[in-house]
């Protein structure tokens, strides 16, 4: 199964508008902490998540707004989390880097590079041992492939033929270090293949291409073939985080990639084949913007967790250890 291109476009626009609004709110001081924007990489989250069922699990990174939105985590609860409200998806304890939603099997943003990979391996192992056909999709970047966890996890996933979809978002930079400075071999899919996993590179700016690749990959993984590795070649249009002055990238390079904006790319294709008019796009955009605006209003009006609840969830409420931190 593949997704309707129009749905992919809608998801990408939602991510884009959500994040543009986050950037404004960050500048205005309403969102704090670190904020890592996904702008430019939307085709990856939209294309992959469209192929997952509700029984599948998703593990993400600190650059996770796109994955959470594409996974269907309500944008109201995401925006409320940005505001640090109790109405947020992590009750204000996670912020932008630690979004969780158990009901959508969204097992969080992991802010230690590579740290989500072992967790995802275990989710896949748990599914396998319980005989469910579920798949775990784990997103990580090119930087994570320099971590030992990548090696350990891919080796184990192949060894145990676990239902793990490894989505490497190769945006060419590990924070400010270019891929040429971080990897002896920059052919990431080839490296993954050397472990015995099926692996191939995908144009990560083309949502339809990502979606087709994900559909095939998910089929293989669900069918018991073991892990599949997708190298999704993409680019972030904005700096690493809101603190980053972006001194390490050439303006021309950014401009060249912006010419392949995944939203523009898909919209142009749909216009060309007659399935989208400018008016349609404007309508979708207006609808998305209205949803984001409503989410911001709800987040701002949301309640804060009382400080009396500070130490709640250190241990489970039912644990006798909970008393020790009260």
């Amino acid at each position, binding site marked *: 199964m593949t997704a309707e291109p129009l749905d992919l476009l809608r998801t990408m626009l939602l991510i884009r508008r959500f994040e543009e609004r986050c950037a404004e709110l960050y500048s205005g001081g309403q969102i704090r902490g670190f904020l890592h924007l996904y702008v430019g990489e939307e085709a990856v989250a939209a294309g992959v998540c469209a192929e997952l069922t509700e029984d599948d*699990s998703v593990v993400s990174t600190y650059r996770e707004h796109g994955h959470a939105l594409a996974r269907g985590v309500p944008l109201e609860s995401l925006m409320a989390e940005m505001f640090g409200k109790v109405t*947020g*998806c*992590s*009750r*204000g*304890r*996670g912020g932008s880097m*630690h979004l*969780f*939603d*158990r009901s959508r099997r969204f*097992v*969080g943003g*992991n802010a*230690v590079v590579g*740290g989500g*990979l*072992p*967790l*995802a*391996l*275990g*989710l*896949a*192992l*748990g*599914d396998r*041992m*319980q005989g469910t056909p579920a798949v*775990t999709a784990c997103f990580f970047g090119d930087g994570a492939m320099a971590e*030992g*966890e990548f090696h*350990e*996890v891919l*080796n*184990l996933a192949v*060894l145990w033929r676990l239902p793990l979809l490894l989505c490497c978002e190769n945006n060419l930079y590990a924070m400010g270090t270019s891929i040429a400075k971080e990897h002896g071999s920059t052919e990431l899919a080839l490296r993954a293949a050397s472990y015995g996993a099926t692996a191939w590179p995908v144009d990560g700016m083309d949502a339809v291409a990502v979606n087709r690749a994900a559909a095939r990959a998910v089929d293989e993984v669900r069918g018991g073939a073991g892990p599949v590795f997708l190298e999704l070649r993409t680019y972030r249009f904005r700096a690493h985080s809101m603190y980053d002055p972006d001194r390490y990238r050439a303006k021309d390079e950014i401009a060249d990639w912006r010419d392949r904006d995944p939203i523009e790319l898909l919209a142009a294709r749909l216009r060309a084949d007659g399935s989208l008019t400018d008016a349609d796009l404007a309508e979708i955009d207006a609808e998305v913007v209205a949803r984001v605006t409503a989410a911001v209003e709800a987040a701002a009006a949301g309640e804060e967790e009382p400080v009396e609840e500070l130490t*709640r*969830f*250190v*241990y*489970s*409420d*039912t*644990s*006798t*250890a909970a*008393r*020790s*931190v009260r």
Partner: protein
Amino acid sequence: MTAKARSKATSSAKGPLVETTYRDALREALREALREDDRVFLMGEDVGSYGGCFAVSLGLLEEFGPERVRDTPLSESAFVGAGIGAAIQGMRPIVEVMTVNFSMLALDQIVNNAAALLHMSGGQYPVPLVIRMTTGAGRQLAAQHSHSLEGWYAHVPGIRIVAPATLEDARGMLATALSDPDPVLLFEHGSLYTMKGTLRADAGAVDLDRAAVRRPGTDVTLIAYGGMLARTLEAAEALDAEGMSAEVVDLRTLRPLDDATIVGSVRNTHRAVVVDEGWRSGSLSAEIVARIQEQAFYDLDAPVERVCSAEVPMPYAHQLEAAALPQVASIVAAALRTKG
């Protein structure tokens, strides 16, 4: 089983006494857990074909098969993280890490994931995971197999740290740990595996909340855990000959600490010695001393003493290793110093 197990300080088993060892008691606990709950599985380096680095899981592969007694590659971070993920997905994994020194390779998963996920997710993701590992010195294994780093883990909120020092606890702590909704790290002292003794045939789950008074006394409280308990009890006997009656408290659980039992004993004896195989700087022993002075300062007749390992990476040579570790004589001397 949870509530029942928690309600008793120690096992209330009444069956006949049988000869056993610490290792066999641990194995029996594993066997029982694997038998009673299909969600339980054991995973780690050499737990299967080899029978466990210290032969704790010997025979379990044959009994339960390779799915549930799962050999892993040498990938501590990946298989500890896999335990976390599998726990979230509904399993009840028991992950074995060969030694606490090796667990440094999985520290990120333990501290940044296992201990933090519940809170970071606003209560959505408890991690019912048990991690077993060997700790401690005494076998001339030098600086990368001998350290007592459980105190580091006891620093971290979100996990429970337990250290069985007796056969009853070796047999009974695992079941309770598995019924805990949150991660439990279980530290087996390497010198205890061959410890022999008797255990009730129907020994079972024990609580993980309370410290235990292993020997009553009136003049000084000796506080120990894990591998240090036996020699602390020996020191208590020696102190009798010196005319000093020592009470021995076995911490059992290093996090959360059972302040009530520790402080209760010190209030009676007015003197305390903390025996900890970990290094003293920034340590669990320092934490216990701090709690005693916070809660029982005016009950004390003397400064609280500590007997810890010398601040060196553990050396190989037998005389150097022995000199680095708390010994009966140094515990006795510390207790006598509290008399002034």
